[in-house]
């Protein structure tokens, strides 16, 4: 971070073309057998992009179908498969892995000044496991899909569904092991691989948030794994584990399922909060206000997230006293989330803000996350939840968190570190236009769904009463705008790989160890392990870092 570290870790400017992790070795084999965390991050990026497209196609078909009250495109049975595919693919194969396995893999060793993660081969293994899970899921999608919704609720999934529930559950089970191994790897890396002088309170906040989400990976994922195994056994042998006729309890499935799947929501949001901390500090040229509060709020969210799962069962037979407790605990989780939003806002105050594309995503995140978070409070309240549960209000709420916040942060992070990952700059004007289109398209898609839900339109239905048509058409129109917004970055980012100007080590003038090495970094990240002498985001006391563009 100090200027000396910068000089030590940059090769002589007049030297031959730099050897970096991308051009060190060539060929398919060099990628498929790599143990370099940066290359593994890119393998993951390609994989989850494919899955994002699959989930996106399903969403597009759903929105087209909802143009007309009687359904414009598909049979209701097909619609059931579409929303199940959309949910399963987007949750388990895009959102949960998204930021951790791509940016996390790429950045954690770089940010803490290490040559690699603690267990590089395990890291590669976890990609192979994930890819296997993806292939199983794609096989299920191609051979008829699954119609249980992403929640696999019993007894429908165990007894009545005629689709391939077991194989779909297996794909989630397999992908879960990838999450577990990644979580273990990240925690050990952050504990044991920090460079000399990189104390816990000098860590970038991205690392704190990755640590918090790795805790959820490690403690939550095994529970969904065993739950899906129980589901598989019940479906194959029908021994009554979740069948009330044989003494089983379907509600037990919901408890076990949400014990993972609610914390999983925070797996999706915590990493994006880490990205936002980096972006806001870099583009307002200020240290994050209340660093330690933001750091500990990540841990607080991770811990409280394990205690709120019952709010998914307010109306499915949970006792009223359990409901009371879960309601209170769910309100509690709003506190650390609000701490973060207030601290980010305070960071912006009197900062010298610049509006590059990543910052536009960060500012979009702030607004959308606030709306998503505040509407969550309506669902955490017992009385309002009775009215809103199972309606489009819920759909809009969690899309504001998962797409409005998590995907915005993912896009912002990809744009911020793209020059570091690839060594090339993308056209900033196009990037800003795309960010604006995504923001507008997103709100147009999902804001009407709050209204629809409040008026009583249930989720997961292929048809609806005619009076809801105007709002549904509005939502579908927004989805088209959103799709355009996602396609534009896809084009110019690919374009930039070949035609983008050379980025140089630090195109944004940002602080942080990863910006002190060349872009793209060498295979072992640093020519010499850096020695850290100052806290993160030291924008104010240190001289303005030079914007280095070669």
């Amino acid at each position, binding site marked *: 971070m100090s200027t000396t570290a910068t000089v030590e870790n940059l090769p002589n400017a007049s030297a031959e073309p730099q050897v970096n992790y991308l051009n060190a070795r060539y060929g398919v084999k060099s990628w498929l057998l790599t143990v370099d965390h940066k290359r593994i991050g890119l393998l993951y990026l390609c994989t989850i992009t494919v899955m994002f497209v699959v989930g996106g196609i399903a969403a597009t078909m759903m929105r087209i179908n909802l143009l007309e009250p009687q359904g414009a495109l598909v049979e209701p049975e097909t619609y059931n498969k579409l929303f199940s595919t959309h949910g399963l693919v987007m949750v388990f194969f895009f959102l949960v892995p998204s930021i951790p396995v791509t940016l996390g893999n790429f950045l954690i060793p770089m940010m803490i000044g290490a040559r690699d993660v*603690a267990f590089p081969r395990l890291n590669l293994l976890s990609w192979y496991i994930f890819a296997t899970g993806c292939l199983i899921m794609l096989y299920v999608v191609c051979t008829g899909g699954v119609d249980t919704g992403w929640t696999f609720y019993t007894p429908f999934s165990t007894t009545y569904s005629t689709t391939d529930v077991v194989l779909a559950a297996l794909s989630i089970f397999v992908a879960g092991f990838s999450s577990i191994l990644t979580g273990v790897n990240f925690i050990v890396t952050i504990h*044991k691989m920090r460079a000399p002088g990189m104390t816990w309170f000098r860590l970038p906040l991205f690392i704190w948030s990755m640590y918090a989400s790795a805790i959820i990976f*490690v*403690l939550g994922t095994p529970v969904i794994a065993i739950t899906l*195994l*129980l589901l598989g056994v019940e479906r194959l042998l029908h021994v009554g584990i979740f069948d009330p006729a*044989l*003494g089983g309890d379907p509600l037990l499935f919901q408890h076990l399922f949400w014990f993972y799947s609610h914390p999983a929501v925070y797996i999706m949001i915590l990493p994006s909060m880490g990205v936002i901390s980096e972006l806001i500090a870099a583009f307002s040229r200020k240290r994050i206000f209340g660093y330690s509060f933001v750091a500990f709020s990540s841990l607080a969210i991770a811990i409280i997230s394990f205690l709120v799962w019952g709010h998914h069962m307010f109306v499915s037979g949970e006792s009223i006293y359990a409901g009371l407790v879960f309601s209170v605990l769910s309100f509690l989780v709003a506190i650390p989330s609000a701490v973060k939003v207030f601290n980010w806002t305070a960071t912006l105050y009197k900062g010298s803000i610049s509006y590059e594309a990543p910052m536009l995503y960060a500012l979009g995140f702030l607004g959308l996350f606030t709306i998503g978070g505040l509407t969550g409070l309506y669902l955490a309240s017992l009385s309002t939840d009775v009215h809103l549960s199972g309606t489009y209000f819920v759909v809009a709420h969690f899309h504001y968190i998962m797409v409005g916040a998590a995907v915005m942060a993912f896009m912002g992070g990809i744009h911020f570190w793209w020059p570091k990952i690839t060594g090339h700059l993308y056209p900033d004007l196009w990037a800003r236009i795309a960010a604006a289109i995504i923001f507008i398209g997103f709100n147009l898609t999902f804001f009407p769904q709050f209204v629809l839900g409040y008026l009583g339109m249930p989720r997961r239905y292929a048809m609806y009463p005619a009076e809801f048509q105007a709002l549904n058409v509005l939502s579908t129109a927004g989805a088209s705008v959103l799709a355009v917004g996602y396609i534009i970055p896809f084009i110019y980012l690919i374009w930039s790989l070949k035609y983008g100007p050379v980025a140089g080590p630090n195109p944004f003038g940002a602080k942080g160890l990863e910006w002190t090495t060349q872009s793209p970094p060498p295979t072992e990240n640093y020519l010499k392990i850096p020695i850290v002498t100052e806290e993160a985001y030291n924008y104010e006391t240190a001289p303005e870092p030079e914007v280095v563009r070669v």
Partner: protein
Amino acid sequence: MSDAAITHGDNPTGFAHQFEELDQQHDAGRLGMWLFLATEILFFGGLFTGYTVYRSLHPQAFLLGSHILEVKYGAINTAVLICSSFTMAMAIRSAQTGKRKGAIIGWLIPTMLLGATFLFLKFRFEWYHDYLEHTMPGFGFYYRPEWGAHAPQVQMFMCFYFFMTGLHALHMIVGIGILLVLTWMTSRGRFTSQYFAPLEISGLYWHFVDIIWIFLFPLLYLIRF
């Protein structure tokens, strides 16, 4: 960094490039295994939760189900596993104190044999017997008249029995596989009194699998007393 720290300049065996010191590598491996064991506890935890819920809902049926199991075999297997934990600990101790590789292998092989004994008793005298007696859910489970209205829940108890002991047995099989690899590594002279981390870390796993059994034995076999 202390002066005594072993670094890449010393070129010791088994030292991975991403670490600065051998101690750092040991610590990372140990922490990694402890975290993995935490995930295993949560993994089995789902089953323990299910068991607890249904036992509190159907205490009588679980009591009846427990009578199907033979305490004799459960008790023998408990003793077998405790002995295997001892031999595993001794294998690590031998490496730590710099004993010959023959001494280490001399403790690893009994560990494997005890593990195999456990599995043999479990499958041959318990599972196979259950299969013949039609007390294996999904394979012609027979509702005995003496269970009366509790029969479906007795089946559920047996289902949990097979699920829990099956998952445990799977972990035992993986453990024996790990021990085979360790024996091969030992015979190649890979471990010294300075580098024996794989032995130690695998030992953690082996003891963990044993401790799971220590919980399963009373929950499944002894609740009838």
